[in-house]
């Protein structure tokens, strides 16, 4: 009986397994081959084994470390901002949403818009001739910062990302907040607990697991950012908005350094794997 199931399970799993193998299996072998070889678009079919040379090239590349540092800062800052804003919005608006749930639909619109499209929209609204933001800033305070200048571009992309993805954090916190049993709040209120104290002493600790999950997901998404930055400013003035993803993309398509970009992708994969494993181990331990 057990053996029969074993075969049947394998059959049932085969579509997924074959699909993954076909689309990802071969590329994995390919990337390992190229990662350790001397390759360009001209010598695609005859990669020459070069050991760790590509990895040495990557780690010696200042731009690689700048990209890593950019992604790390970008992921951290946006994750913290989004979660702080999302949490505040969720808790404050929860009574309103209880009565009018359509409010949520309006707040999640930014998430349904493609990040690439959002980047393009920012190009429009920040444009000094056609954009409403410089227009209103000029007419109200008489000046408008150069949003995409080397000095300001980092803040600009941070704000754009934060405003698009705060709704995600908001949604997670809203669900967590709504699932706190009403009796707990009532009991606390009967005991004379004030709202502020109720939040910090009771509700917030109950939402801590959600906070970890939200920060983690938003960090991962921020770290791997590509679409919106790429469509808004590309790699930015002087490469100042080169995220890890943009670095690998440009090394590959613009410069055709296949081996080097593969090596960078492998390094990125390994670090993502380590971070994921550690985070999930921590989450499991915390939930125990």
């Amino acid at each position: 009986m057990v053996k029969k199931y074993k075969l049947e399970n394998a059959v049932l799993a085969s579509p997924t397994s074959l699909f993954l193998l076909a689309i990802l299996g071969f590329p994995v072998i390919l990337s390992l081959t190229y990662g350790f070889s001397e390759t360009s678009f001209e010598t695609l079919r005859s990669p020459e084994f070069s050991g760790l040379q590509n990895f040495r090239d990557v780690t010696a590349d200042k731009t690689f470390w700048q990209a890593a540092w950019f992604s790390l800062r970008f992921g951290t800052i946006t994750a913290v901002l989004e979660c702080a804003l999302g949490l505040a919005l969720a808790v404050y608006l929860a009574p309103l949403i209880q009565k009018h749930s359509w409010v949520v639909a309006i707040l999640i619109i930014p998430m349904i818009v493609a990040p690439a499209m959002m980047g393009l929209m920012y190009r429009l609204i920040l444009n000094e001739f056609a954009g409403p933001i410089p227009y209103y800033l000029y007419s109200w305070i008489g000046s408008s910062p150069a949003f995409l200048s080397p000095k300001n571009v980092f803040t600009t992309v941070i704000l754009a990302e934060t405003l698009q993805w705060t709704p995600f954090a908001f949604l997670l916190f809203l669900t967590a907040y709504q699932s706190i049993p009403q009796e707990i709040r009532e009991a606390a209120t009967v005991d004379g607990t004030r709202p502020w104290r109720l939040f910090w002493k009771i509700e917030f600790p109950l939402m801590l697991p959600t906070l970890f999950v939200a920060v983690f997901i938003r960090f991962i998404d921020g770290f791997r950012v590509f679409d919106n930055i790429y469509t808004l400013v590309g790699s930015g003035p002087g490469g100042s908005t080169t995220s890890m993803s943009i670095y690998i993309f440009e090394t590959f398509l613009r410069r055709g350094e296949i081996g080097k970009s593969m090596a960078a992708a492998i390094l990125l994969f390994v670090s993502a794997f380590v971070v994921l494993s550690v985070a999930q181990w921590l989450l499991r331990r915390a939930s125990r």
Partner: protein
Amino acid sequence: MKRRIGPRWIVFIIAAFVMNFPVIATFATAFKGPREVNLNPSLWIEAPTLENFATVLTISDRLNVYDYLWNSLVAALIGAILPMIVAFPLAWPMVRRGYGRSILFPAIVNLRALPLIIFAIPIYLMYATVGLLDTRLGLGLILAIVNLPLTLMLLVNAIADLPLELEEAARMDGARTGRLLLRVVLPLCRPALITTFVFGFITAWNEFLFGLMLTTSDAVPMTVGASFFFATSGGGVQWGVAAAVMVIAALPPLLLGLIMYRRITGSMVAGAVKG
């Protein structure tokens, strides 16, 4: 416990306005005529016109919106449906027999958290070899990989919520596994399948990186095509036209998402919490 609602409305309106500002401004710009765009950057439209949309929808050889829309539609349909077909038979033994719960399930689910660029380059090289570069099928296949993790999770959740009794009754009638899955489990999963489809379609439609890397002319999706309107050579960007393109590109997922927002929000949260 009485709480005042009034100030909450104000906070909601401000938050909604700020977060949706790019979308609102783009919609406003799309309805301004070519003269007004340069004279009046405010949100107020002096003389609303559909001129920009007419310009966009008039076929031109170089920037053909119909092609972009068709490419996006085909690729997004493949990207949304294929993972459902392959994941459904796997989700059932995962729930009922604990099959693959220790390795296969976490491995697939974690795919979601990896930077897509890691796959993009080797897939580019593989596609170049097998001739899938710049094809709707090629783009659809990789979008299916992107959607696979969440699809599997949502189907696993859905099957876990089904009552066992129905399956047991079907077994008593002598149904084999294949029949049981197709005749009993699949119809019961319909609500989850719809949610999964909508979510997968929106994700696939909105994808940009693979569209950018894997297509050049024949299979360019709408997200990438829209960016072409910003890269016009000489004379600068025609903002009204560009805004109209963005409206057209953003509308399908926006409408789907707003109609189905309850299901969408539910699956977003489910995907986050179980991951």
